[in-house]
Structure formats: structure tokens, C-alpha cells
């Protein structure tokens, strides 16, 4: 699904985010709705998406990845910051131009059961984009829709069926067909397989890979399942509480994670192999993800970080490359994890505050 990533550089950048911020105000009061707080869903994200790649975006609940996805797809108005698509600033576009942007920038949604209007026929749903943008009418539209259906693996004769008559995986295919109707260049996929069974998941992942090859698509792939993200992405960005904490090429991230949160995340992935599962050491974080309404000061991860020190509480680290890392690998941490470091050890040393460790067997290295 991925070729090696194209070199960075402006002509290769399809989408660029600059200090994008999206806050949701919390209002009280009946007539005069005063703002009493804000949900800082996305709190300053700068990111690049290169042509032809698949950028994976991972994080847990409350990290803001879904919000960020919608900011990218311009389904949200930005609180501040810029989004630049193919050289054009699309941060504040008037309605009409925003609509035309849709032909280049599309989105696939997570929930196959709610992302299709249950009262509309499938052919009408898929053909909607064509109708809206006046690209095809009548028989021609029908033909194009059926072509799309075949392309995503659906039977074109089911044109007149309702979504309820399809299974979850098929509905997701319908959603994909709809997104592709306009032949976009960038597709933001918001957890497209999270709601599907494992065997169907694999079908859809293969489909997405095939389509990327056939149509030259660029993907932003959001998921919470790291093994899926690893499979599909060329580069991965890790989010925590509204900020990117680390970004790197996939293999680089998995072999040399620098940020403690990334390490914790990686160690938490369940491995479907009993021997390896037994042998590995885990980093257990205590507590839950704090609320994005009141993020911690300084580095947002510091309350749960096994390496946190005074500086971490005061100063927010910047996302930048660290010495010794590969090209394109950036980390936001004052004390990034060193290649030989055992975080479990650091947690024990730090004592008490954070980081229960379970060390099962402790043999690192080979199988």
C-alpha cells in the first residue's frame, strides 16, 4: 500500500497545517450564552501531508484526531491557524469555493451504520456528489454510479437498495464509493475500519490500498488501532491531548520511538501471538487521559510520564527533530527516550508518582 515516501519539499506537499487550533466553547445561560470554558480539541498542530503518501494519525480518546481530521477536510471552522491545500490557503473560504474544494478533498466516515441516510437509496447516495456539482445527470449519472459500485466491490444491480439491506462492510464500501465519486486527490479516512469485524476489516484495507494505487490518492488515515495504522501508513503522527507529540516514518516510529507516550502506546498493543505476548515487558500508565478542557501545564503528558521532571511542568516542548534521528522524525519532548533506555527502569527510579511497570520475563531482543 505504500511506496517509500516522496522527498519533502513544497511541491510535494499536498496539504499543510500551520498551528491549527480548534476549540469548542462551552456555554452556559439561556438568553446570553456566556462561555465558561473551552474544549481544546486541537491546540496547535502543524503537519504536512505529501502527495501519494498515507499519513497515519493515531491517538486515544480525547486526543483530538477526529477533530483534526475534520479541520483538514474543512468540515469545521478553524479557531485559528492555516490550512493550505496544494498551495492554496483554504482556511477561510466562502461557501461556493468551499463546495468546489470538495471535488479535491473528501472524507470517509467511521460508522457504517450512521454515515448513510437510511431513507435514501444507495444509488442516490453515491450519486449525490455528482448531482450537487452538476457533473452528470440521468442515465450518465447512473452509469457512473454503477461503475463506482463495481470499483469498490459492490454489485451494481443493487443500485436501488436501501442501506439497511447491506452489511457493515458493504456499507463502508458505499461510503467509499461516495467519497470517490468526485475523483478527489486527498481522502481523509476517519477510522474507516474500526467498526468492522476483523475479516471484513482486511477486505476494506485491501480495497483502500488498491484504490490508492489505481487512482493515485493521498490518504490521511486516522485510527486508534496501531497495528492497522502500521499496516497502511507511510508516516505516522501520534497525538495526545490536542497536540502532535511525535511524527516519523512508520518503521522508524516503531523501531525507535522517542516520546514516552509513543512507547507506552506501542507497548499496549495486544499482540496476537502468545509467545511474544508473554515475553514482552509492558509500560503501564496510571490514570486516564485528562480532559481536553483543562490540559496540564507545560508538556501535557507530564502527569503520567515516567520521565517527567521539573522542566516538563513549566515548559511545553516543541515538535522538532532530535539528534540522531532519521530525516523527518520529530518529537515533542524535553527528555526523549534514548535507544538504549529502559523506561520501566526510569519509572521505578522516579518512584511512586507514575508508571506501574509489569516486567514479564524481561528478555528483550529476539523471538
Amino acid at each position, binding site marked *: 500500500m505504500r511506496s517509500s515516501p516522496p522527498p519533502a519539499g513544497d511541491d510535494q506537499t499536498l496539504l499543510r497545517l500551520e498551528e491549527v487550533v480548534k476549540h469548542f466553547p462551552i456555554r452556559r445561560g439561556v438568553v446570553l450564552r456566556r462561555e465558561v470554558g473551552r474544549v481544546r480539541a486541537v491546540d496547535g498542530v502543524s503537519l504536512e501531508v505529501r502527495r501519494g503518501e498515507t499519513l497515519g494519525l493515531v491517538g486515544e480518546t480525547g486526543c483530538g484526531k477526529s477533530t483534526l481530521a475534520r479541520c483538514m*477536510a474543512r*468540515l469545521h471552522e478553524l479557531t485559528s491557524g492555516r490550512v493550505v491545500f496544494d498551495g492554496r490557503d483554504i482556511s477561510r473560504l466562502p*461557501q461556493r469555493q*468551499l*463546495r*468546489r474544494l*470538495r*471535488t479535491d478533498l*473528501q*472524507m470517509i*466516515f*467511521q*460508522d457504517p*451504520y*450512521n*454515515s*448513510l*441516510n*437510511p*431513507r*435514501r*437509496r444507495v444509488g442516490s447516495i453515491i450519486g*449525490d*456528489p455528482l448531482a*450537487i*456539482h452538476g457533473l452528470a445527470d440521468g442515465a450518465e449519472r447512473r452509469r457512473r454510479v454503477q461503475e463506482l459500485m463495481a470499483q469498490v*466491490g*459492490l*454489485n451494481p444491480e*443493487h443500485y436501488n*437498495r*436501501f442501506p*439497511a*439491506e*447491506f*452489511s*457493515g462492510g*458493504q456499507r463502508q*464500501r458505499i*461510503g467509499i464509493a*461516495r*467519497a470517490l*465519486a*468526485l475523483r478527489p486527490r486527498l481522502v481523509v479516512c476517519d477510522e474507516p475500519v474500526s*467498526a468492522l469485524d476483523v475479516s471484513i476489516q482486511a*477486505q476494506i484495507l*485491501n*480495497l483502500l490500498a488498491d484504490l490508492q494505487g489505481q487512482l493515485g490518492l493521498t490518504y490521511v488515515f486516522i485510527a486508534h488501532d496501531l497495528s492497522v495504522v502500521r499496516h497502511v501508513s507511510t508516516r505516522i503522527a501520534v497525538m495526545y491531548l490536542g497536540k502532535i507529540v511525535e511524527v516519523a516514518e512508520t518503521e522508524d516510529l516503531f523501531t525507535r520511538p522517542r516520546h514516552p507516550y509513543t512507547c507506552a502506546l506501542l507497548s499496549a498493543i495486544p499482540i496476537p501471538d502468545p509467545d511474544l505476548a508473554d515475553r514482552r515487558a509492558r509500560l503501564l500508565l496510571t490514570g486516564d487521559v485528562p480532559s481536553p478542557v483543562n490540559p496540564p501545564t507545560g508538556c501535557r503528558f507530564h502527569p503520567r510520564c515516567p520521565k517527567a521532571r521539573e522542566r516538563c511542568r513549566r515548559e511545553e516542548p516543541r515538535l522538532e527533530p532530535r539528534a540522531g534521528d532519521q530525516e523527518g522524525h520529530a518529537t515533542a519532548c524535553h527528555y526523549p527516550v534514548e535507544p538504549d533506555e529502559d523506561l520501566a527502569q526510569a519509572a521505578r527510579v522516579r518512584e511512586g508518582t507514575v508508571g506501574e511497570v509489569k516486567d514479564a520475563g524481561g528478555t528483550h531482543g529476539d523471538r
Partner: protein
Amino acid sequence: MREERMAIGEPVLVAEETGIEPGVVARGPWRLAWERLRRDRAAIASAAFIIFISLVAVGAPLIAHLTGHPPDAQYRETGLSINGIPVGPNRTFLFGTDELGRDVLVRVAYGARISLLVGVVASALAVLTGVVVGMCAGYFGTTVDTLLARSMDVILSFPLLLFAIALVTVVGPSLPLSVAIIAFFSWAPVGRVVRGQVLSLREKEFIEAARAVGASDLRILIVDILPNLAAQIIVYATLLVPLSIVFEATLSFLGLGVVPPTPEWGSMLAEAVSYYQVAWWYVAFPGAALLFTTLAFNILGDSVRDAVDPRGERMFVRG
């Protein structure tokens, strides 16, 4: 326990990942609702009655012709007894006569016209207004919503009858006025319900998806939201008709509706009250007509609601 319904896997090794063909039926939500309705005996009976009474209404002139009694003709010799008391059902007057010697059967038939006309038209107007206002309030939110929702609240707090009386007294009774009054008081509940539905629909992912594809607000309202309201609208419309009919009959009963001598069930009942001891048919037949018509619409409305109820639609097992 929930049922699971999916298209079934077709035996075998067709193309790698295609969607499959059902051996099971493919039925859209409307077909399903229709079939459920067809199986409902009560619904069929009510529908039959409604068709029947509509035919009567339409064919009222025919009935007048067949009996030879126009609705306003007063038969003082044959229709009233020596003492001036209305004559009971006999061969000439199948439903008897009223206090002026008029043929009750024919008047009931003509009365059906008024009731059905007003009932249906007023409901239609109310539903139309309610849906439009409700959709705007629910979809656009904030200021628009506050404005519209508060107006609905105001209307709902109006004292119905007093207002009607006042208005009619000032303007003078007429059919269009009756229709207007009924529609005016009936649209707010519809608007409320529709607003609620739209508020929850607005948050659904498929609406967001429509926006992602570039749909304008208007298009979303018409193409995406309206079909999801259709079921509710139909139920409401069906249930609003009997309410309107009764409302209209009440207005006429109080002398606020149609102008005499127009035959109308409510006004007939108003007169009949004084004669019930000597002329039971004068109360019974218009009363029965009103009762059964209202009942039929109510039952039908209930059955329609059961037929389109989302609880009856498919649900999926996940995991």
C-alpha cells in the same frame, strides 16, 4: 434479543471481495411498512370505512337525487307529525327528519363533505406549516430556533375556544375561517415534534457526510432530512384529521362554524339536543357519523404509526 438481518453470502468463490446476493428478500423501509399495514385488520377496516364515507360525501348529490330530497328542502307535511315533531326513520326518510322536516340522511351525507373537507385541508395546512417551521427551527438553531420555538410555545398557550369565539364574533362565521382557526392551533404541536426530530437528525453522521460532499443546507433539508421525517409526518397527518374534524364540529356546535342552513354534523347535533327525547334519530345518526369517522381515522393513524415505527425496523447485532 435483537434480530440480525444481512444480505447473505452467496455460496462460494465468486470474486474475492464482492458484495453478495441475498437469498433473502430485499425490502426497503417503505415496503416493510406497507406490508405491516396490510396485515393489520383494524387498519383495513378503518380504511374501508374512510373510503366509504368519502364516497358518501362525494356522492351526496346523488343521494339527494335518489331520495328526491334536496338537503335544504323542508317537508312540513310528510316530514313532520301533526304536532310538529320530526318523523322517525321510515320508507321515505331513511334516517328520519329534523325539526324543520328536512331529510336527515341527505343532510348527514352533505355534512360529511364539510367535515372531511375541513378535516383534511386544515390538517394538511397545519402539517405543512409545522414541518416547515420545525425544520427551520431544528436545523438552523440558535436565534432562528429561539424565535420559532418561543412562538410555538406562545401559540400552545393560547386559550383555544375563547380565541375562536372572539375571532368569529368579530369576523363572522365562515368555512375558510374555520379552516384557518383549526390550522392555526394545530400546527404548533407538529412543529414541536418535527423540531425535536430535526435536532437529533442534525447530529447524525450522514448529515455531516452530505456536507462533506458539498451539499447546501437547503439540499440537506430537502433530500436528507425530509425523508427521515416522512414517517412521522404521515402519522401526524393521519392523527390530526380526526382532531380537526372534532374541532370543526365543536365550532359548528357552538354556532361558530358554518352558516345555517348548511348541513353539518356539529350544528345538527346542537339542534338535536333539544329534541332527543322525541327524535332519537336526530341525535343518533349525525352523532354516529361523527363518532365512526373520527374513530376510523384514529385507528388508521395508530396502525400507521405502528407500521412505520422505527422499533419495527431492522436492527443489527454487533459483536
